[in-house]
């Protein structure tokens, strides 16, 4: 899976982009966030305030129930502040 991080999520995790292989039990966005948060301190710091996390799968906003699979581009970022 192609993972993209933006803004302070990117800074806390320490990279803007990485490719990871999902374990079989991770099938939704919510499970993906839990699994990432357990990967280490930096991930936990980036993802602990779940209400401040937005997720797009293949460049479309989705909720935590949305399915994910290895072929997806999944972006994780804070609420947007453009304009």
């Amino acid at each position, binding site marked *: 899976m192609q993972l*993209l991080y*933006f*803004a*302070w999520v*990117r800074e806390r995790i320490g990279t803007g982009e990485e490719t990871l292989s999902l374990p079989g039990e991770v099938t939704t966005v919510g499970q993906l966030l839990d699994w990432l948060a357990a990967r280490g301190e930096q991930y936990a710091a980036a993802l602990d305030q779940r209400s401040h996390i937005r997720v*797009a799968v293949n*460049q479309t*906003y989705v909720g935590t129930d949305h399915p994910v699979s290895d072929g997806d581009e999944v*972006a994780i*970022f*804070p*609420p*947007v*502040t*453009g*304009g």
Partner: protein
Amino acid sequence: MIVKVQAEDFDAAAEIRTLIGGRTDVGAVVTFTGLMRGGEGATLTLEHYAGMSEKELTTIAEEAAHRWPLTDLLIIHRHGTLNPGDQIVLVATLAAHRGDAFAAAEFLMDWLKTRAPFWKKEEAGGKTPGEAKWVEARADDEKAAERWEEKE
């Protein structure tokens, strides 16, 4: 319909002239220009999700075109590092009548503020420059966007 995401500055007057393109059925043009506010030496860095940012702005533009009888519209959003007074964003709506042009322009800005994947990082500058800080999303932007939900 013109949607652009770019690092370069834009010439609002030239862009709008292109959009009108000599048509004479446009009675009302409403524009919104967002400028960077800040003291001397301040900087603003706009990060965006390349690919999704243009896609999302196009979706927002299409939604406005669907909701109001517009002749045409444009959205230009910059990314990269900006200085005080610099242009950040331009929205323009063309319509026969002003009510539609005003409503659509406000809608575009409200949705853009809450949906377009851009993030601002500010550095205050001045004599005691502090750490750069990510701008926090504002609850009243969410509220402004919500008022359009009921009008579908």
